């Protein structure tokens, strides 16, 4: 296994916080170059120059942190290309600074609350897909597959019980679901919103970069 493929595997753990999909499958990793000495340069590209700076920052910072987890890696540079706030974001990420340092005076706190809001949406959306697949079991242990696995990760990130005995379906606040008809409708809509949004991002990315294939993990 080459170092580059391990770098790509790490990048595959970085999710678009809004779409709840890895940046590698979304095509957001435009290139990934690993030098013989172990220096890594990752170039990220987004569907439009005006994609929200907050999500763009999170992906760039998460990508840098993920690659830096590999012990063999030396310098890590993450470059967000062709973005209207790219210069600010690249400088802050390169320094290891937070989002508020990238845009002094234009934020009212860190991005933790935003990230959690979208983790809750992502959890509900995944549950919506699981509910569409069949009648709901009572415990998390009875659910399997990629959506169930991602639910466990999201629940852990949100501090919601994720062991096998925990309730299979919870609201974004962690409360066990009681009204499955109403919750199912809301969850299905949330899933559709993420899917439609992701589809539009892919379409715009494809139109923007035409033939330039991204790097997949």
């Amino acid at each position: 296994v080459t170092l580059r493929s391990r770098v790509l595997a790490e990048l595959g753990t970085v999710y678009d916080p809004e779409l709840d999909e890895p940046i590698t499958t979304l095509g957001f990793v435009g290139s990934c170059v690993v030098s013989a000495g172990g220096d890594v340069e990752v170039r990220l590209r987004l569907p439009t120059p005006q994609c929200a700076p907050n999500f763009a920052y999170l992906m760039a910072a998460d990508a840098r942190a993920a690659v830096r987890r590999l012990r063999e890696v030396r310098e890590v540079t993450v470059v967000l290309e062709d973005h209207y706030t790219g210069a600010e974001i690249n400088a802050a990420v390169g320094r290891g600074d937070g989002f508020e340092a990238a845009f002094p005076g234009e934020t009212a706190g860190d991005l933790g609350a935003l990230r959690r809001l979208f983790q809750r949406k992502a959890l509900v959306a995944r549950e919506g897909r699981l509910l569409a697949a069949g009648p709901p079991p009572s415990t998390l242990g009875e659910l399997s597959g990629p959506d169930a696995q991602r639910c466990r990760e999201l629940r852990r990130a949100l501090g919601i019980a994720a062991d096998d005995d925990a309730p299979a379906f919870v609201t974004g606040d962690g409360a066990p679901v009681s009204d499955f008809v109403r919750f199912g409708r809301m969850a299905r809509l949330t899933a559709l919103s993420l899917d439609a949004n992701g589809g539009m991002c892919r379409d715009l990315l494809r139109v923007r970069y035409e033939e330039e294939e991204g790097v997949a993990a």
Partner: protein
Amino acid sequence: MYEKDGERYFVFDSHLHFWDASPENWVKGQEQYAEGWINCFHAYMGLAPAETHWPIEKFQKYSVEDFEKDVFKAGHVDVAVFQSTYLKEWYTKGFNDIEQNAALLDRFPGRLILNGRWDPREGEAGLRQLEADHAKYGIQGVKLYTAEWYKGSRGWRLDDAAAVPFLDKCVELGIKNIHVHKGPTIWPLDKDAFDVSDVDHVATDYQDLNFIIEHVGLPRIEDFCFMATQEPNVYAGLAVVIGALMHARPRFFAKVMGELLFWVGEDKILFGSDYAIWEPKWQVEGFVDWEMPDDSEYSDYPRLDVSGKKKILGLNGAKLYGVEVPDELRLPVPADEPASPESAVGVR
């Protein structure tokens, strides 16, 4: 008017533009934003059928003749609403300001409705301008861009205290249709850019105003639906929904329509082409032909019949703007039912 299979559809396009984004109109030092903005719009055109794509040069600046052909002649549109978009930080004369748009009114009498705009950050001067625009053009509606940049500010919210005098002024002057574009880059930058909770507040406080959420809050359609279902004066503007999804993502389009029909209902959905991003012709024709797919994934969505399509394509919008619809294009009133406000579309 569009006719298909013996049915005739009055077409009210609630959202289109006549812009100038040519390099001559870019503000010095802001060229990257002016160019980025129009390139971004142009990318969206890429989601339409290939034969309707334009080269970037034409897309930056198209002629009155193009407009007439694409909208009124080939595009089946009876009446259209101009949404003014200023963006004067990036475009010297504005992207399409009210004066630019007004220049077309005389050329197409009775076919165009001019909407204005306001921005609470302009304070007293902005209020006076709104009064002047109303006095000069008799505007019935405005388009609000909460994400617009203004002197170092990257956006505003409808529930800001500064917006209150403007909303009050709209009530006072009878400017009753408030189109809201929910777009990216709102301040503060660490919050969700597409958040529609500000609309929720003002829709409750201002029951006399109609709030048309352009692009149905995409990509936060779930937040929009949960709100719209509770607020009787919140409408769904279909601009972008048809243009970006019907051709490029037909299965998503069907689901989005299904959710809108369920949560918002066919009486509160308005067609908008968002021309020149997308031409109206393929959107109108495709929407009339469109049917909810017949497989189990879609089984519990409401269906949309011919009368529902007539409402969405024209009658709902005509009602909001008091546009008279010819008798033969209205929905028939069943003889055993008293006429309801819904059947009196455009008659005021």
